[in-house]
């Protein structure tokens, strides 16, 4: 989320809508984003439909996911026009989650190999 919105001209934002009330933007941009979200979602569906695997699958899934999330946060939720104080207060804290995800992926790796060691491989292939 942060990467997409960090480059937005947030510092310039106040002058943009100070005089007017709230977030007023041309309607067109919402239709463009709406269309883009449809296209991107179709692409992510096609990733599964055409059964891409491995690195191709993951890079496609993740980049399409971040693009969609970025468009929703930046335009639909108006983050690119908000003041930097609010943008940073909301978008920086979730970065901490990377630590949780890293720790838990190490932990799950450990659990997986412990299970293999103590329960044996037959649990991995119940059919065998």
């Amino acid at each position: 989320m942060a990467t997409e919105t960090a480059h937005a001209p947030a510092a310039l934002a106040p002058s943009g809508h100070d005089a007017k009330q709230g977030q007023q933007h041309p309607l067109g941009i919402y239709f463009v984003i709406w269309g883009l979200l449809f296209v991107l979602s179709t692409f992510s569906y096609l990733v599964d439909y055409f059964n891409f695997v491995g690195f191709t699958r993951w890079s496609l899934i993740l980049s399409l996911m971040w693009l969609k999330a970025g468009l929703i946060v930046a335009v639909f939720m108006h983050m690119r026009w908000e003041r930097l104080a609010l943008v940073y207060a909301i978008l920086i804290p979730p970065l901490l989650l990377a630590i949780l995800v890293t720790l838990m992926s190490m932990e799950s790796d450990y659990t997986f190999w412990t299970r293999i060691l103590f329960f044996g491989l037959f649990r991995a292939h119940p059919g065998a």
Partner: protein
Amino acid sequence: MTELALEDQDATRLQSLVTDWSTDQETFKRVHWGKAMMWIFLLSDTFIFSCFLTSYMTVRSSTTMPWPNPSEVFGLTIAGQSVPLLLIAIMTFILISSSGTMALAVNYGYRHDRRTTALLMFATAAFGVMFVSMQAFEWTKLIREGVRPWGNPWGAPQFGSCFFMITGFHGFHVSMGVIYLSTIAIKVWKGDFERKGNYEVVEIAGLYWHFVDLVWVFIFAFFYLW
């Protein structure tokens, strides 16, 4: 010393607490308080959903049993042909469309066009109802096929608990959103915000709704496409 002694008295201490927090220390300048509060609520919600998705990642990558293939589990058979993930794809498009109508509603609100705003919000809520109904259909189908929080016919027993917990919590958010949006839409229709001359309440409700769509983007990628 005498001043310090005075501050120890409860009344004075309480007063100092109030003074400290209410002096002119506004951080989010010219941001409606409701909007700042909604963003902070959404931030906390981000952590809740992230905990669900992280625990799902943990159990999925630590199980030694094969994970049920979502592509097949959530497939539909149409005219004898099985189409993978069809229902989920339709649900995704419905939720995106609801986000679109919501974004338009916010825009028309700031134009003080209360009829269009209310109608667009009702349309958004209707899309939300459609989404939850399709989710109810999906749950019914999986429960009939034997998926339980403690097991399922196709593999790792953790599949059920992750599925019900994550999609259930998201569906709960959508349901609450439908009630929230309908309440605001009725107030818009009656002209409450016209009298106040301020439509920011619509934008704040919109933030919540877009967040529900945002969470679905991550659930779709991690739960259905992995």
